[in-house]
Structure formats: C-alpha cells, structure tokens
C-alpha cells in the first residue's frame, strides 16, 4: 500500500504496534507434523548439534567447532572444539565423544583426537567435508544426549514428542520453555488446527502457503530439500518426456519449491538446470507407440503423505495420456509399476547425497566423484537408465501462528529447526 503525505493524516491509532518489542522468555511452542518418526532432521536438530552449521547463504559457520583448517588437497582437516560446551546431562563435550560420533557418521574417514583438536583424514580429497559435517554428523553423547538448545523429555513413537529448554545451553538458554510436538497429523488437520489456534506451527501443503499468506499468516520455509520423483519398475523414457512439470509447479504446487529433472537440487549440485525439464510430446508419442500394447497401460501408486500427491498423479496421468500411455492410479500400491515418492535430501554433500538418493530410489550406486564435472557425469548416467523421473524439489513449509515471533529464520535451508531464537508473544516471562 503506497503511503501519501498529501492525504490527511488519520488520528493516531491507539494501538501503536509498529514499535519493536523485546523477546519474551517462557511458553510452550505447539507444533504439529505428519512424520511419524523422530529420526527426521527437524526434531534431531533441536537436541543435537554439529561441528559446523551453514548460514542462510550456505557458508559454514562455527558451531561445536570454533575453527578449522585443511590442507591444500582437502584430505586432512583439523577442528578446534568450542570450550565450555556440555551435553544435556551436564557431561562435558570432549574430543573422544566427538571422534566416536564422527566415526559412526562418516564411514571411510579416519578420525582422531589430539587434545581438544579433532583430525579427520581421508585417502581422497573431501572438499565437501564441512557440508557433510553440517548435516550428517550430529554429535551425540552418553544416553543419546546432545548439546543442543532443547532436550527431549518425552517420546511416543508416531504420536508425540516433547522438548524442554536446555538451561545450560552454551549459546544461551532458549526463549521457549518447551516445545510440544504432535506427530502423525494430516496436513488438512494441521491447517485446521492452525486456523483454530490449536497449534503454533503446522506444516503447510504447497497450495496452502498462498492461502496462509493471504490471511496475513507468517510462513517458514526451508530450501528445496524434498525430492518428488517417479520410480519406474522398468524404463519409462516416454513417460518422462510427456510430463509438463511447469504446469504442475505453477498450479498444483503454487510455485513452491523448484522444478527439477535432476536428482540433486540446484543449490546442492549447481548444475541441475542442465537436465532439461520441458516436455517433448512428439518424441514421447513416438517412444510410446513403439512399446507393446500391454506396456502402454501402467499402474501408478502414490503416497498420500506427499503434498498434492493425488493431484500430481492425476496430472501426470493426463500428460501420459497425451503421449498414448494410460495410467491407473491407486494409493499405496506396492505392486504398481510406477510410484510417486518423496525422498528427503540425505546430505548437503553432493557426492554423499547422490549416493544416498540412488540407494533410496533403488538405483545402482553412482561412481565416486570428487569434482562437480565427475558428479554431473555420475548423475547423468544414473538418469540415463530412465528408472527414475525427478519432478520437483519441495521445501518444508510451515504456517506459523501470530504469537510466534523471532527474526532469524527458524528453519534453515536444509530444513533444520533453529528454535532457540523463537519466542511467544503474550507469554509472561
């Protein structure tokens, strides 16, 4: 809305809400989620920390490691631990615990402690080590406790998890007293609860982000970290060429996330745009016509937990029909020849992410790649088999209640939760 000094000024509103307020301590943040397990990154990121973490621009920043160095070949790395850090049971963070965590999280690397310095050696260059450390290597102490700003106080698998503020957190006690997380809630129910004020943070389907914004609701969003793809039991090049990703992205996903014909998202690989995403209907028709009649009728199964899964499947079926392929759609059919799946990005290291994605999608392990060009070749070879059709990379998106405040992005690009700077308006300190 354009402000005009020529217009008569209105009487001052009694509620001068423009002035900034100081954060409040106290309160329990209520969160609802679909995922039924606690193994996903958001919950783990509340209690566990890594040696380094990435800032919004992707630059590694000190976390449990204050500083680090590496040799020219990026084969030998050294990390200096931050002093004064304690686990949630009060035990001190030391190099031995870090070594044990890193050895488990980074197989194939030799990790050793020297005083409070951690040395990581590899027999090949690992220029992306910091990315792996930032995402894949959570430092875990005794009894699976972490050093993070919150500690888990309750866990009922599939139903409920609860966290309490770590009073002795090295970065300063969080503003929130507790976080209460209801698990296993559908997106629809979460949206309703958000609207009714029954929750403070709820996951949003892509189509609901617009609705939430239109109502003036704050939204949080990670980077594009969830790959939505079609897994094919047999080669499905014709289908891949018929899919109009742009239309689905514009309408069904409301331009959330990004279109992708690559396994790795653009911000991880830097070359995802090189995999063409535009459909080639003429070629799709020609390929489909060459298939035996029985192969032109295919079953497609979708996971209802994927946002807009049914709508995506329906649209894919419409596109496929234009190419002469008939798809029969069903939910959660393990026998289906095609499956619409969502796979979270397993690592921020491109090479590790590609290997893990290939495993998750049932592809053969890609060749080892130490350069971007080699990684591109590995990925291209994986996709040349036409057994996976990447479609989109979607972010984790959350609608946030009005009482939730905080200016630092509470959800990182990689989807981790940084709730230590969140506070609730209207709560008593």
């Amino acid at each position, binding site marked *: 809305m354009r402000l005009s000094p020529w217009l008569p*000024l209105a009487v001052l509103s009694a509620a001068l809400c423009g002035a900034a307020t100081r954060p409040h301590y106290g309160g329990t943040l209520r969160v609802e989620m679909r995922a039924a397990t606690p193994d996903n990154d958001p919950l783990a990121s509340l209690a566990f920390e890594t040696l380094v973490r*990435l800032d919004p*621009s992707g630059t590694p920043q000190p976390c449990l490691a204050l500083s680090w160095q590496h040799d020219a070949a990026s084969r030998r790395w050294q990390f200096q631990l931050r002093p004064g850090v304690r686990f949630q049971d009060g035990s001190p963070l030391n190099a031995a615990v870090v070594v044990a965590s890193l050895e488990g999280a980074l197989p194939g690397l030799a990790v050793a402690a020297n005083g409070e310095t951690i040395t990581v050696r590899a027999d090949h260059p690992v220029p992306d080590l910091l990315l792996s450390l930032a995402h894949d290597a959570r430092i875990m102490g005794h009894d699976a406790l972490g050093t993070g700003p919150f500690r888990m106080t309750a866990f009922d698998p599939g139903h409920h998890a609860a966290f309490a503020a770590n009073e002795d957190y090295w970065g300063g006690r969080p503003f929130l007293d507790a976080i209460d997380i209801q698990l296993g809630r559908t997106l629809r129910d979460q949206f309703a609860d958000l609207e009714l004020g029954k929750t403070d943070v709820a996951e949003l389907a892509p189509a609901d982000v617009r609705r939430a914004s239109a109502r003036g609701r*704050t939204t949080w969003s990670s980077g594009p970290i969830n790959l939505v793809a079609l897994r094919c039991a047999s080669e499905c090049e014709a289908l891949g060429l018929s899919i109009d990703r742009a239309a689905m992205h514009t309408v069904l996903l409301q331009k959330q996330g*990004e279109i992708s014909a690559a396994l790795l998202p653009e*911000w991880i690989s830097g070359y995802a*745009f090189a995999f063409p995403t535009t459909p080639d209907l003429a070629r799709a028709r020609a390929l489909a016509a060459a298939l035996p009649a029985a192969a032109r009728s295919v079953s497609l199964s979708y996971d209802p937990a994927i946002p807009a899964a049914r709508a995506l499947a329906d649209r894919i079926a419409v596109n496929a029909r234009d190419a002469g392929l008939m798809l029969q759609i069903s939910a959660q059919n393990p026998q289906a020849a095609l499956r619409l799946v969502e796979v979270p990005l397993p690592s921020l290291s491109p090479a590790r992410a590609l290997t893990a994605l290939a495993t998750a999608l049932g592809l053969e392990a890609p060749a080892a790649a130490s350069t971007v060009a080699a990684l591109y070749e590995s990925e291209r070879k994986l996709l040349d088999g036409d057994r996976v059709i990447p479609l989109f990379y979607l972010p984790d998106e959350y609608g946030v209640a009005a009482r939730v405040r905080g200016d*630092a992005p509470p959800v990182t690009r990689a989807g981790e939760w940084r709730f230590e700077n969140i506070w609730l308006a209207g709560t008593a300190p």
Partner: protein
Amino acid sequence: MSPLFLALLALDLSGAAHDLARSVANAVAHEPVVLNVRNLSVLGPGETAEIRQAFESELKTTGAASADVQLTISENLSQYVLLAEIERGGSREVLLESWPRDAASAGAGKPASGRVTLEKKLLWEQDQPILDALQTGDATLVLDGTRVLLIRGGAQQSLPIPAGHAWPRDLRGRLSVNGAAFTAWLPGTVCRGSVQPQLTLECAESQDAWLLGPAAIATFEPKRNFFTGHIDVEPGGTRDLAPFYAAAPAGDAWVMAGTDGRARIYTHAWDAAANIDQWGSDIAGIQTTCGPRILATRPTGLAEPDAIQPYELIGNAANSAGPAVEFPGPVTALWSTGAAATAVSYDLETGRYAAFTLAPACGS
C-alpha cells in the same frame, strides 16, 4: 566482497572459464559459435562479464555459427559452477568446470553470517515533504516538491523547481549524483544541475526514464505516483511489466513492489517466480559485503510507525536478514544509493519529515 576475495575469485574464475572455454572449443572443433551467457549465481555483473570475456577469447563467436553454446554461471554450497551446453545439429553436449566459492581457509574471523544491521543516520529534517536526499562529498543534496537544496557546512543553497504543471498527489522524486553533477527526476520533469562550485539547476518537462538501479532505468507515469512497468535493464533489454512503485535488484533477480500491493520476484529471465505479500510499497536493493540485500518497509498505514527490514533473497523466498530499523512514523520514500539507501519518514509526533541514510553492516 573484499578486494582480496575478489582477486582470488578472479584467479579461480577466469582459470575455470578458460579451461571450460578450451574444452568447448575442442568440442565444436573450433568452429564459430553463438554464445549466450546467463548468471544463476551470486556473482555480479562484473564477474559475469569477465567470464564472458574469457570465453570469447577462446571461442570464435562471429561468422557462420556451427553451434549454439549456452554458458551458465551457477553455484552450489561450496563451488561456483560453469556449465556449457553445446547444441549442434540436434545433439546436445554438456561440459562443466567448477571452482571453490571460498578460496581462503575457514575459521573464526572470516566474514560471518549474512545478517545485516542497518545503521541509521539523519541527513536532513524539514517541515516540507522530502522526496530524496543524498550525501555527495561534504554536502547534502535534498529534493522536495518545490526546490533542490544544497547544505554544505552550515550554509544552504536552494534553487526552485519551476512548476510547469501541477504535481500529482503523493509526489515522488529521485536524486542521482555523479561527481559534482546531479540529476533529479520528478513526474514529467527532469532537472539537471551541479553542486560545484555552486548549485546550478536546469529543469525541463521530460518523459525520460528514471534511474532504477545499476544499469537499470524505468519509465515513470508523469501524472501518477508509480512506474509504468516499462524498464530497460542491462543485460536483457527492455521489458514491460506490471506497474510498480519501487524495484530492487538482488543478484540477477529483481523484485518489484507492485501497485497491487504485492512484491514480485522476477528471475534473470524475467519470469515471475514468486510473490511476497508482507512488504510495504517501498523497497530498495543494496549491495553489502555479505551480498545483495533488499530493504523493505512494512505494509502499515499512514497513522502508524513504520520500519525498514533487510531481507536476503534465497531462491524464490525472501528471508529476513537482520533486525528492522524503526521509524517514528510512516516511511514516505526509500531509494537505493548502491551500497546504502536513503529513507524519508514522517514523524507523527513532530509533524516533520526526516531523511536518513541506512548503511548496512554485515555480521551478527
């Protein structure tokens, strides 16, 4: 970016560019090609030009082209990526080179997070509405609806702006300084002058486009308070977008604060990528040492205090990049000066208009 960083970056960048250019030249058998360059990274136009130059020096880009080469500058978390797509006779070949984003070792003391803190400094205060104000050398130049004012030391000089026609309501105006010369744009009028040795001013009715940002101009509706949507940006050329109040560059992207109350993000290809619904009508893009940032007002009313918040564009989302700067009343103007911005606000208590510079400082 720091000079050292830029130098190091240049080494890696041109090295990778030359390597890739050689690979491409070999691939097209050194025949002439049509070269297109686009930038998807945070590298600025300077680096983009350097890469193009490195390529053109290796490739023959004139004559009957045997292939189309699309060169894309991209990045991931740790590397800049240079990718060449060669289209030749129906076939497609992809060649890649990359170089690290950060040549120096990491550790404490390096430029830290992308968070930006805005330092607000008062430039000028007066009763009449201020349209724009700029610091130029040791002087301050102020534009309002009736005059151009030069304040140097304690002395003031002003020259009237001839009112050849009635100004539209919600008058807007913009100043730009180049050495001692300055340009002032008002709806349907352009004034040029200098501040040395003393203030001169010459105004004429004109439909000339206003300066929008670096290498970007836009046509202002002469009897209104918004830009028509016709812009001219280098590279890229002219475009016709929806009418907007303000625009801010962010890397290769642009954000336009539309007259419908929505801010729209446009990609480098001028595709509308996403909307931002929680911004006011005034936005400005500034270049900071931690990257481009966008300053945006809040969508508050005339009778409410406003604030200006820095944002960082990541993908198609605008994330808050630092604490907001509060103002005692509505912000009436916000213009970028490149590495900083000028903000004008109306004080609800005193009834006076004040112009501030907003200088960004990177770090938490």
